[in-house]
């Protein structure tokens, strides 16, 4: 019962966070000088009546506070407004279309980064030599500052161009025959027990997810290594030893302690991951929200950009909610 209540309260906390970001974006996009319609059209040579008509159509002629609340109310109803560029196209349907691809990329990237980062960090902590530890720590910081497009393009060059093993972009070789359920293709293929499609989808996701996962794994390496070292030197471990508990078991208990900061950190990681996803998707022509955002940025489609940002804010909020619940489950000291 306690956990349910805690979850509910924590979920409500997402609302102010999203509101703050919405307000910030609203201020930046609407209140700052400059006419968004003109910016979107990329020209100033447009008759005054036509401009007014356009503004009216998009609701931009109303006072700012009305715009602010109108958008909010509509958003809650599931209406994210219409594109300024492709006239009349509802943004909500675009996002429903693109979101699963981004989720798929994120999930696989997090899996890769946890395996690489926590794995190497753990191995580093177990290594006896200080040099190995220093190397892993350094790798952690260097990997983290790799520029995603540069890494992605190099991987493409190697695995696609020279080795010819993996495709350079897209989510599936042919989409015609496959009917998605959730839109997360690897999951859908498994649900439909369609092994060839699963392998095809996997081949497409490997490079993008590896690129993003590798970059994000850096902080995990350092976090795991540092925490593991600290715990292994603690009184608690000394007490375990004094009781004659085997080293392999002690390591397992220590690792559980490392999971606490790793879990909390995953909340922050997810927001880094989302930023990275934008670049990864662009590099690999991955048809997700990131590519969509870049596309809209190029055409200065303000309504779409605004919607995407709010969606990202909600995703980040939900992730931190999940992380908090996980944290409460791992650490009995958390009272909820």
């Amino acid at each position, binding site marked *: 019962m306690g956990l349910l209540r805690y979850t509910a309260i924590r979920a409500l906390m997402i609302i102010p966070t999203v509101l703050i970001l919405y307000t910030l974006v609203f201020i930046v996009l609407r209140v700052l000088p400059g006419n968004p319609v003109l910016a979107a059209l990329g020209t100033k040579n447009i008759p005054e009546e036509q401009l007014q008509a356009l503004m009216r159509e998009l609701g931009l002629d109303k006072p700012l506070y009305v715009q602010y609340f109108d958008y909010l109310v509509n958003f809650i109803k599931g209406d994210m407004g219409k594109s300024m560029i492709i006239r009349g196209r509802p943004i909500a349907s675009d996002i429903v279309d693109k979101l699963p691809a981004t989720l798929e990329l994120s999930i696989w990237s997090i899996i890769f980064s946890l395996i690489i980062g926590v794995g190497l960090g753990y191995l580093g902590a177990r290594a006896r030599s200080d040099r190995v530890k220093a190397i892993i720590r350094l790798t952690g910081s260097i990997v983290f500052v790799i520029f995603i497009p540069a890494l992605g393009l190099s991987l493409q060059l190697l695995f696609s161009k020279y080795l010819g093993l993996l495709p350079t972009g897209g989510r599936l070789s042919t989409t015609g025959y496959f009917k998605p359920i959730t839109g997360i293709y690897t999951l859908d293929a498994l649900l439909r027990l369609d092994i060839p499609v699963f392998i095809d989808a996997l081949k497409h996701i490997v490079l993008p997810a590896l690129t993003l996962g590798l970059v994000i794994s850096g902080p995990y390496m350092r976090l795991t290594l540092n925490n593991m070292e600290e715990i292994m*030197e*603690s*009184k*608690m471990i*000394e*007490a*375990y*030893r*004094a*009781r*004659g*508990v*085997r080293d392999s*078991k002690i390591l397992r*208990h220590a690792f*559980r*302690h490392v999971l*606490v900061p790793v879990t909390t950190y995953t909340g922050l990681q997810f927001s880094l991951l989302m930023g990275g996803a934008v670049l990864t998707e662009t590099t690999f022509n991955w048809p997700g929200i990131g590519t969509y955002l870049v596309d809209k940025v190029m055409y200065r489609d303000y309504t779409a950009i605004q919607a995407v940002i709010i969606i990202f804010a909600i995703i980040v909020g939900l992730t931190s909610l999940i992380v908090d619940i996980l944290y409460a489950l*791992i*650490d*009995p*000291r958390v009272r909820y």
Partner: protein
Amino acid sequence: MEVLTVNDLWVKYYTISGIVSAVSGVSFKLRKSEMLAIVGESGSGKSTLGLALLNMVPKPGRIERGEVILDGVNILKSSPREIMKIRGSRISMVFQDPFTTLDPLRKIVDQFEEFLIEHGVDKTRARSIIKEYLEAVGLPERVMYSYPHQLSGGQKQRVSIAMAIALNPQVVVADEPTTALDVIVQKQIMDLVDSIKEKYKSSIVLITHDLALALERADTVMVMYGGNIMEYAGKTELYGNMKHPYTRGLFEALPRILQKTLPKSLPGNPPDLRYPPPGCVFHPRCEFAMEKCKSEKPPLIEVSKDHIVACHLYG
């Protein structure tokens, strides 16, 4: 009959800023159901000595020389596998701070059971042992299913003691088991240790900075300073016949209730064990220091039966 014999034990720490001689040539014997108190101030090497008894001196430290013979076996020569079996079952340890020594993420029963199973106890037997010993230390059975943070400091220390005695070890090393606790709880815990000694006939090494506590509770008292034994005697003998200037200094530093004079204090500071003073380590703070003390390390002299002093005054 001796259960534990320590012969000429030397421990050094190899730190970046120099080599610290933490324990320098300590020898003693511990008889069955005897409580030996090792008394010393910070930096006297008493805690390192306690860890050395379980052959678990931490990293930059190394046991240089000596023997720790438990029941006829030199545990400093035992293989890692053997030593793991010995720790917790034949010699066990209670640490100073009960707040940091229990795993906060695991229930008491899980930690307790794991330890018993590691030492070859089967699961059903383990459960009954846990119940028996939690009761023996005065804890209700429900404590089993608690996490450490749900217990008070005294309760945690009781759990540690229960684990330390559960396999009926010959020796229990208790390193300042009450220092982190309040006076009244200190007394409760020490009463518990006393009763355990009586009931299970365990031998106890009580490491403490408090000479009064040692004189009240122990059978034998060993006073350490700067890694060396200063004085070693039975409680009553020591109480009535203190020899070493350092022991006397410690005793005179104890506040006597309602006397309007302050206790005495020893001048000076504890030695820097990277550069221990030549001769007797205590000579820079000793009011009776002679020329000899500055150059020659005093041997351990038996002044009366089972009363040993390291001081040139009695040479």
